[in-house]
C-alpha cells in the first residue's frame, strides 16, 4: 500500500458525457466537470456514436483544464490519472484513453485504467467510505448487474441481465409511448401521476437465479398498446408508465434483497444512471429498512456518468500499484472481474 493520500484526475468519455474531475484521497471531490451532449443527440432520438466521438475530441482538453482550474491544482500536483477503459462506445472510449495516455506520457504521472461499472459503484465512496463485504445493484442504460465486493478492487458478478438492461427497457418503452428522448426520466415523471392499473409480467427466471430479463416486459407493453388500438380503447399513459416502472422495480428490488441474503452482507449499494429513478430509490429504501440492510444511494449528480467516480475507483488501483502502460486500449466489452 502506498501512503493513503492522493490527488487523482479522472477522465470519462464512455458515452455522451465528456467529463474530468479531481478527487482527493478517493473521497473528496475537488471538481467534477461534466459536458453533456444530450442536446446534440436529442434530435437523433438517441446517442449517435460518431457524433459523440467528434464532440469528445473537441472538448477533451478544455474539460480537463477546467477540472484542474476548479480544483485549484496544477497538472504536476497529481499522483495519478484514471481513465475509463470500458465498457462503452468504442469510439468514445478511445478519446479518453488516448488523452489519458498522452497526458501520462507528457507529464510522467502514472495512469490507471478503470472499469466504468466499478466507477459507478465507487460513486458511493464519495459520499461515505465503502464498507465490505457489500452487494451493489448496478442499473443503467447498458447494465443491470448484481456485484459482490469482498474488498477494494475485487468484483464478483452474482447476476446480470440476459437481454435488455433496465435503462434500455425504459428507453424502448418510452419510444413506444412516443415520449421525448431521453425516455427514462420521462417515464419516471409520468408515473408519478398514474396508478398501477395495467397487469404486466415480471420475469423471475429460475428460483435461485439472480439474473434479470426485461425483453418480455417490453413486448408485453407493445402487445397491450396494440390490443388497445385494435379495440379503439384509450391508453392512459401515466398509468402505463406507472405499471411498467413498477414491474421493473419490483424485480430489481426483490433480486437485490435476495442477493444480500444469499451473501450475508450488511451493505447494499445502488449505482448507475437508473439510480436516479425516484420510484426505485423509494421502493428500495423501504425494503431495506424492513430488512435492516444498510442501503447507500449516490446523490443524483453522481448517478449519471461522471469522472469523479472514475477518479475514486482509480484511487484504489493507484494505492495497489495497478498501473496501465502506454499500450492501453479502449475495450467496449471489458469484463468486470477479479483484479
Amino acid at each position, binding site marked *: 500500500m502506498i501512503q493513503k493520500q492522493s490527488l487523482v484526475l479522472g477522465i470519462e468519455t464512455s458515452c455522451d458525457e465528456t467529463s474530468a474531475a479531481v478527487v482527493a484521497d478517493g473521497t473528496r471531490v475537488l471538481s467534477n466537470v461534466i459536458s453533456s451532449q444530450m442536446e446534440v443527440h436529442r*434530435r437523433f432520438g438517441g446517442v*449517435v*456514436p*460518431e457524433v459523440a466521438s467528434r464532440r469528445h475530441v473537441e472538448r477533451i482538453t478544455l474539460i480537463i483544464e477546467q477540472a484542474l482550474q476548479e480544483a485549484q491544482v496544477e497538472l504536476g500536483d497529481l499522483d495519478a490519472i484514471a481513465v475509463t477503459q470500458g465498457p462503452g462506445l468504442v*469510439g468514445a472510449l478511445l478519446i479518453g484513453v488516448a488523452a489519458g*495516455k*498522452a*497526458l501520462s*506520457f507528457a507529464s510522467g504521472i502514472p495512469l490507471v485504467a478503470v472499469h466504468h461499472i466499478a466507477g459507478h459503484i465507487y460513486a458511493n465512496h464519495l459520499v461515505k467510505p465503502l464498507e465490505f463485504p457489500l452487494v451493489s445493484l448496478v442499473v443503467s442504460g447498458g447494465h443491470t448487474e448484481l456485484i459482490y465486493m469482498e474488498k477494494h478492487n475485487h468484483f464478483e458478478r452474482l447476476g446480470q441481465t440476459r437481454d435488455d438492461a433496465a435503462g434500455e427497457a425504459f428507453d424502448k418503452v418510452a419510444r413506444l409511448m412516443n415520449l421525448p428522448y431521453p425516455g427514462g426520466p420521462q417515464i419516471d415523471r409520468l408515473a408519478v401521476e398514474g396508478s398501477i392499473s395495467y397487469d404486466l409480467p415480471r420475469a423471475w427466471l429460475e428460483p435461485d437465479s439472480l439474473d434479470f430479463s426485461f425483453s418480455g416486459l417490453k413486448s408485453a407493453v407493445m402487445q397491450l398498446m396494440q390490443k388497445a388500438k385494435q379495440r379503439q380503447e384509450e391508453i392512459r399513459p401515466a398509468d402505463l408508465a406507472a405499471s411498467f416502472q413498477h414491474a421493473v422495480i419490483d424485480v430489481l428490488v426483490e433480486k437485490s434483497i435476495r442477493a444480500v441474503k444469499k451473501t450475508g452482507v450488511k451493505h447494499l449499494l445502488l449505482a448507475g444512471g437508473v439510480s436516479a429513478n425516484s420510484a426505485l430509490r423509494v421502493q428500495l429504501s423501504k425494503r431495506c429498512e424492513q430488512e435492516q440492510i444498510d442501503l447507500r444511494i449516490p446523490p443524483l449528480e453522481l448517478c449519471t456518468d461522471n469522472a469523479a467516480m472514475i477518479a475514486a475507483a482509480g484511487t484504489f488501483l493507484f494505492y495497489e500499484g495497478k498501473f496501465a502502460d502506454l499500450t492501453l486500449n479502449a475495450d467496449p466489452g471489458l469484463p468486470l472481474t477479479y483484479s
Partner: protein
Amino acid sequence: MKILAMDTTTLVMGVAVLEENKVLGEVTTNLLKNHSVRLMPTIDRLLKDLDLKMTDMDVIAVTSGPGSYTGIRIGVTSAKTMAWARKIPLYSESSLTVLAMNGFRFPGLVVPIFDARRQRVYSGVYRTCGNKMEEVMKQQVVSIHEWLEQIAKREEPVLFLGDDVQSFRELIIQHLNERAVFGDPAENIPRPSQLGWLIWQKIIQGEKPESQAFTPNYLQLTQAEANWLQKQGNGESVHESQGRENCISSDGSV
C-alpha cells in the same frame, strides 16, 4: 526547435522528430494494426532512440484528416493532449497535403487519394509552388468518376499517390491515358517527416498554432447529421455527406 510530428489518419502510422528542417528520426509502418495501442509506445521508443525526452519537444504536429475517422481522432486527441500538458503549440496539416509532398519534384499535377468507399475518394489536386504544394483543386470527398472527369480536363501529366490508387488504376488510365503517372511504393506512403517540414515552414512564416478547441477535418458530416439535414429539407449538403463510419472496424483499428 524540435518538432514531434505524428500521423494516424490512414493505415500508415508515422512518427517523426525534426530539429527545425532536419529530420532526426522517423518511424513509419503500414499495417492493419491498432493505432490506439501503438502510437504512444512508438513515440516513446523513437524519443528514447534519439536520447530525447518529451520535455525537449517544442512543437507538436499532427495530421488533421481526412482519413479513417477513428484513426484521425487517435492522432488528434493524443497530439492535442500532449501539447496542452506541456504547454507547447500544436500545429496541424491535411493528411492529403502531407501525401502530396511525396510528389514535390513532379512537373505536373499531384493527386493524393484515400479510398472513401462506395466508389468515392478523399482527394485534392496539387502543384509545386515554392517550398509547398499549392492546392489547385480543393480537397474533398468525391465520386472517383466525377473526380477523374474533372482532372482529365486539365492538359497536364498527373501523378497519383497513395496505396488506395491501385484499386482505381484501370479507371484512371481510361480517363487520362498516358498522362497518368503512378507513385513508387515509397512515394505512396505519407511521411511524418514531410508533415514536420510543412509545419516548420508554417512556423517560420509566423502562422498561428491551433486553438484548444481544434477539431479534425473529416471532410464530411456524420451519416446521422446528413440524414437529419435531409429530413429538414436541406438536400444540398447531403451528397457530400455520405457517412463512412460503418467502414471502421469496431475494435478501433483503422
